[in-house]
């Protein structure tokens, strides 16, 4: 019953036009700089960025648990939790560093530069983990194509710095 509504939601997503989903994806991307700035403001008002990050995680977790309890997002297989590789718990720990650093650097560097650096770091580390297949990621070797991409990334980050 519960999983039915999740599949109904997915079914709705599958039926709605691609353009709408693209708009949705664009919208979700737009949330990120706003989120970084909100967290930054929280950190400024509280006088502590880590505290702000903790509060931010608390509200985020609350919203997600509420969504889960609403039953519209499928019935997770909680028994699988024990079988999960131990490092897979690390996601939240590593993510909190992102929340802290973005909240800390946005007022200092500006939103564009902070998020540009974040995206750059994300892509570079992504290429490296893909290359070695760390963390059970499907392995993708460093192709000439990706070398060019890395070069472009470095150039674009350099140009971003010039903008200051």
């Amino acid at each position, binding site marked *: 019953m519960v999983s039915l509504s999740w599949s109904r939601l*997915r079914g709705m997503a599958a039926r709605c036009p*691609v353009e709408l989903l*693209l708009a949705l*994806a664009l919208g*979700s991307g*737009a949330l*990120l*700089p*706003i989120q*970084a700035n*909100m*967290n930054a*403001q*929280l950190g400024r008002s509280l006088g*502590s960025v880590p505290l*702000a990050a*903790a*509060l931010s*995680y608390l509200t*985020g*977790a609350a*919203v*997600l*648990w509420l*969504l*889960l309890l609403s039953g519209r997002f*499928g019935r997770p*297989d*909680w028994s699988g*939790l024990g079988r*999960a590789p131990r490092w897979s*718990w690390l*996601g*939240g720990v*590593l993510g909190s*560093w992102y929340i802290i*650093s973005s909240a*800390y*650097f946005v007022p200092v560097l*500006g939103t564009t*530069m*902070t998020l*540009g*650096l974040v*995206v750059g770091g994300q892509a570079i*580390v992504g290429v490296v*983990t*893909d290359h070695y297949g760390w963390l059970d*990621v*499907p392995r993708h070797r460093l192709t000439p*194509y990706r070398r*060019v*991409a890395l070069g*472009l990334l470095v*150039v*674009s*980050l350099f*140009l971003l710095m*010039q*903008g200051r």
Partner: protein
Amino acid sequence: MDLLMAMLGSGSGGGFLSVGAAANAGLRRVLRSPVAAAAVNFSVGFLMLTLLLLLGIFGPQSFEGLGQVPWWAFGGGALGAMYVTVNTLAVARLGLTTTTLAVVCSQMVLSLVIDRGGWFGLEPQPLRPVRVVAIGLLLLAIALTQLDRDRGSPAAPLASGSDAGDGGRVRRSSAARGLRIGARIWGAKGRRGLGFGAEPSPPPLWIGVAISFYAFIAIGIAEAGLGILLPSILTAYGLTPGTVTLLFLSQVGGYITAALTSSLVTARLGLGRSLLVAASLLTGALLIYGLSPVWPLMVLAGPLMGLGIGLIDAGINTALVQEERTAHLLGALHGFYGLGAVAGPAIATTLLALGLNWRQVYGVLAGLTGLLVVAVLAAVVGRYGPLLKRPADPGAPAATVLGQALRRPVVLLFGAFLLIYVGLEASFSHWAYGVQVMARSTPPTLAGYGVSAYWLGLTAGRFLLGYGLRSLGALRVLSFSLGLLLAGLLAWWQWPDARIGALVSLPLIGFALAAIFPTIIWLIPQRVPAALVPAAVGFATSAASVGAALIPTAVGWAANGLGLGMVPVLMLPLAIAMVGLHWRLRGG
């Protein structure tokens, strides 16, 4: 703020996010629910931070400020949760590639807007073009890594009822689907056009033809715009006319590299990807021209520009001439190059007159070639068949094939022919105006009309070429053209009167020159075994570019000593040399 610190700080934030995402994928797999995985993720993050705060790692904390927090600032966490949820819905249908691109795109654009408007109580920062360029490059880089992720995944099961959170295999397959959807949105027309799905009908040719024509317009503009900008560059860096020729010579290195490698590059990457690389190189070089703070950097960018133009030139010529359905378009292709070459100086002059400086004009030119990058990227992403095709497999390593091609006298003959021809054409476009105005004291307007008449003759000749090749055959077209060329040059030399120049000799020379380049390219597959054609065309077109850079310079030096009035005489031996080569061509 120490920049290194900032880079390490926020860059590592992104890096950790990437690792975190990989870790989270493990959680999603076992829980079978992306939202549940995110909930666990957020809870772990909260618990860990609370623990650290309680342990006093971050120093003493207080909740005193809680009263002053604006209400909206508490929304950050909720937005994060929303992001995760919406994202999983989108990824399931659009695929990872399209979703990632969309997210990064809107993220960066909104960041620029926030910075510009000084939202959230920050200092407003003006919108700088450098940043827009930087973000464009960033998007291109992300697109490249994501596209590549999809490449080489062996026929992932596309039809599986994929769960977004189901880890690697499905992730890749949904990425493949997303690519196609992305291609559908970004302009390529309809399902059938892209050859995806089950429809077997061949992809329409016009997309490739349009891209080829636009590419030639773009390189025409990029090459010809330089002449107008030279005086400004000269004054900006305090150069002399002698040192500024370094700019042309620096491009020669790129052309030569292109001559020797274009067939290797296309064999390795396929046409579409090598065009993508070439157009990016060209755009990059134009950007460096525009942004470079010092003169030596401009010279260093020259080879990039030469390489980009050379690869585009060789790749497209080869592709068109090898395909029966398109070989008759060669004349039009070079006609479009002519159109670009006419438009380039006009565009540059207009922009300068509008008050832009030469750097900004280079920015505009880079934008025009950037469009080419986007078009080729869309075609590659959309799996547009004709661009993905690799040249016929010669059954031997590309380098060996190149060696075999270069050992054939006829290939060298074609190369020499084009080297001289393009050198003559370029000398003409560089010096005709100067000869008319300075040596013959023609009024500038009349001289301008004369040069326009030359280009008009050239363009008309190229668009008529298909007809000529059909009714006369290639060799007769060449004989006819060379005869007209000699007559035109003699007339130009002997009748210095400006009106005769504008009405008769200059358009005649243009018309005579029009056929030579496309006809030679058209002849190559007739005289060279199919396996060697790409190498031969690549060599010939790039030899042509070398001629375009060297011969006008040589003519300039000679005219320096002998006087500008001697330029028509200097061109006669070049035309006669072509007659000699043509005679060899007929004989063997």
